[in-house]
């Protein structure tokens, strides 16, 4: 009778060298971008980390569904005047989704930057084929892609559904509304720059995600009334420049300018400036934010 051998146990699988191709710097940047998506959306994180981003995404999808349903219902009953005049279109829809986007940026920007910095993970990043500027650019790409998707996906769905529901037919509607194809992406880009650059400044300076998000929202909300106060009631020389502080309202003004709507109600225009001044302010704040982040991270690394 043959003895039964003892059960085999793998005690050491040894070590295998990697023999494939390494992607170098582009591969490292791509990894940071993908990790940014996962981090912001709470993917491969604990359940509570998913609540906020997915609540905001759900709000966007519900809003586009409700708005499209209103257009569909109005078209079905033939109230074309209502559709043309009263129901929100792309510009007005930005009014709603930009508020949600503000909340999204408020938590997403510090979420992308603060934990790496405060938990010391930067030391790992910078020991890889990645420069400080690559790291910041990759984080910026993550935020930009997510934010543009956040703004553009509902608008695209909305546009396509408007075409489907149009009494003139899909093709005619699309051809009649070609301007939307540049107006919506341009506006989304302005919202991204306007909101994300201020968030970048806060996330660069504040060491906690929740604290940074709160400060950002407080600053953005409080600067508008402060700017209005300076424009409307202060009468010292140069008080009109206080209008430039209204960082939250600049993207709305530029949006109305892009869509050809009236721009008279904003602090910047009430102070006597042209709408392009709001765009210039957004660009300036963006440059300052990038310079500040670059300087801070250069020192950290």
């Amino acid at each position, binding site marked *: 009778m043959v003895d039964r051998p003892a059960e085999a146990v793998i005690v050491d*699988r040894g*070590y295998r060298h*990697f023999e*494939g*191709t390494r*992607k*170098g710097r582009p591969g490292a940047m791509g990894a940071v971008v993908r990790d940014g998506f996962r981090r912001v959306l709470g993917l491969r994180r604990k359940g509570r980390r998913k609540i906020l981003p997915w609540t905001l995404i759900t709000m966007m999808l519900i809003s586009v569904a409700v708005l499209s349903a209103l257009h569909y219902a109005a078209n079905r009953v033939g109230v074309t005047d209502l559709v043309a005049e009263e129901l929100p279109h792309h510009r007005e829809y930005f009014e709603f989704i930009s508020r949600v986007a503000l909340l999204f940026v408020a938590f997403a920007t510090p979420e992308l930057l603060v934990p790496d910095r405060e938990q*010391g993970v930067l030391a*790992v990043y910078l*020991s890889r084929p990645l420069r400080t500027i690559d790291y910041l650019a990759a984080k910026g790409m993550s935020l930009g892609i997510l934010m543009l998707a956040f703004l553009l996906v509902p608008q695209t769905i909305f546009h396509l559904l408007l075409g489907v529901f149009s009494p003139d037919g899909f093709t005619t509607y699309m051809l009649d509304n070609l301007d939307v194809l540049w107006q919506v992406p341009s506006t989304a880009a302005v919202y991204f720059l306007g909101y994300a650059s201020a968030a970048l400044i806060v996330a660069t300076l504040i060491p906690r995600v929740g604290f940074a998000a709160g400060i950002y929202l407080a600053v953005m909300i409080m600067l508008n009334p402060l700017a209005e106060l300076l424009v409307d009631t202060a009468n010292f020389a140069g008080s009109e420049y206080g209008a430039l502080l209204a960082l939250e309202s600049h993207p709305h003004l530029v949006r109305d300018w892009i869509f050809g709507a009236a721009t008279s109600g904003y602090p910047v225009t009430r102070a006597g400036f042209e709408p392009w001044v709001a765009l210039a302010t957004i660009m300036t704040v963006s440059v300052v934010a990038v310079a500040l982040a670059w300087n801070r991270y250069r020192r950290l690394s």
Partner: protein
Amino acid sequence: MTPLFSTRNLTHSYGDVRALDEVTIEVPPGRIGLVGANGAGKTTLIRNLLGMLQPASGEMEVLGLPVSRESLDIRSQVGYMPEGNCLPLDQTAADFVGYAAELAGLPTDAARRRSSEILFLVGLHEERFRYLGDFSTGMFQRVKLAQAIVHDPQVAFLDEPASGLDPEGREHMLELIRRLGDFGISVVFSSHILSDIEETCDWVVMLDGGRVIRSGPIEDLGIADSLTVEVLGNPQPAARWMTERGATVKVAGAMLDVRTEGLDAFTLVRDALVATNVGVRRLGQSAVTLEEAFIREAEEGEPRG
């Protein structure tokens, strides 16, 4: 053979403090110990070699590549385990180590596969799907080691890898480091605990106050050529006899510490005892520890390449 790394007149300052002072060394592949007290310049040297810090002056090469021009290429081929915290607490070990591999340029599928393999290697296979925030210090250190080697580097720079570990964890970590050499991965292992280096490395670089006080094979620290002799009677004649023939002799009571260069120490002691007619009570090879060697070199104070 291409040196693992070399530096020429490397100087790095933090304000007025010189962390590295005209460091010139050439180190072969293998298990390299970087020893020195806290503040000796170990971390600064590693971070300069990785191109993470810019030196005030001097030149460096790692794996034959100049750090000033090829730091990104170098970083693709090396791993780094920082001394402090460097782990995101909200990720699982598998996700983070896989991500670390992707950061080194590995494709996603290969990164995931290697993450699993390396976590098995460091003894964390069962825990790989746990969040890092739930890990103990010992597990943290092993994840830090895993992220440093997951992309199959040619050399891993480990900054105080056994820091904060209990004796069992320390022994496990040293065993892992020893095994890296067997896998063909060179290791540069910094520590201020000299016995760790002694157990693990085959080459040692001693740093003191930003200067290299010795760089060489660990077996060349004087152990082989050093004898301790306890004599009966007056040791001075024998000491003088040996000193006249080129040996370095220290006398402490009846004990003689005899160090020779280029001479067989046993033969020299035998001849000295016969010539001076002194009896011997005890004779043996000196157990010069790395700690003693470090103190000796630091006291001599002359930098040597």
